[in-house]
């Protein structure tokens, strides 16, 4: 049986949880997930600090995929966390390439 491919939303977040960008990204991701889309978030620069934010990590339980730049995390001594993919710019390149829509919050 033919199954329709889900639309994919990619998001880049480079700001720390103190920025209003975090709230915007959480609400956008929740809305996209509830309308049946795949959501992939890539964190880099100070954006890697968002994995210490409970509201942000609650997105994992809702089915959002979160990848971060391990190089930036290492620079900031951010420790590994279950459910978060410690990846690289290679992952980002593929998220951008495979997304139907891509939004940047920098």
């Amino acid at each position, binding site marked *: 049986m033919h199954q329709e491919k889900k639309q994919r939303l990619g998001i*880049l977040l*480079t700001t720390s949880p103190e920025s209003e960008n975090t709230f915007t990204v959480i609400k956008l991701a929740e809305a996209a997930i509830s309308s049946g889309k795949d959501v992939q978030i890539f964190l*880099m*620069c100070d954006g890697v600090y968002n994995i210490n934010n409970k509201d942000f990590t609650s997105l994992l339980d809702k089915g959002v995929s979160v990848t971060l730049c391990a190089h*930036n995390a290492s620079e900031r001594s951010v420790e590994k966390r279950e459910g978060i993919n410690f990846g*690289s*710019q*290679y992952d*980002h*390149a*593929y998220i*951008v*390439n495979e*997304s139907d829509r*891509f939004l*940047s919050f*920098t």
Partner: protein
Amino acid sequence: MKKVTVVLQKSPFNTLRNSEALRMSLGLTLANNAVSVIFTSDAVYNLLPAFPENIKSPAFGRHIEMLNTLKCKLIAEKESMEERDVKDVNYNVEVKERAEVFKFIKESNTVITY
């Protein structure tokens, strides 16, 4: 191939943003993306000869050179350069008028502002 455009707007010093944005631009070439970088507003200062390592700031020139080597399009906005009297740029960039830059951005599949 996806047309991905990275737009830089900030000056090179007091921030890691430019070197990170250029590192990210290089990374974007790892997938099937046609990557272009636009230097606008204060970001045109990135194109002047600079020695950021002298003030312990990350070197970004090598990223620009590598993007050139990878045949990524590097575009500087003419009006931003003129407003700031930026001449004799250190890199091989294409200078385009603001209207052309807008058109280029509009034709991109993905735009990442930095």
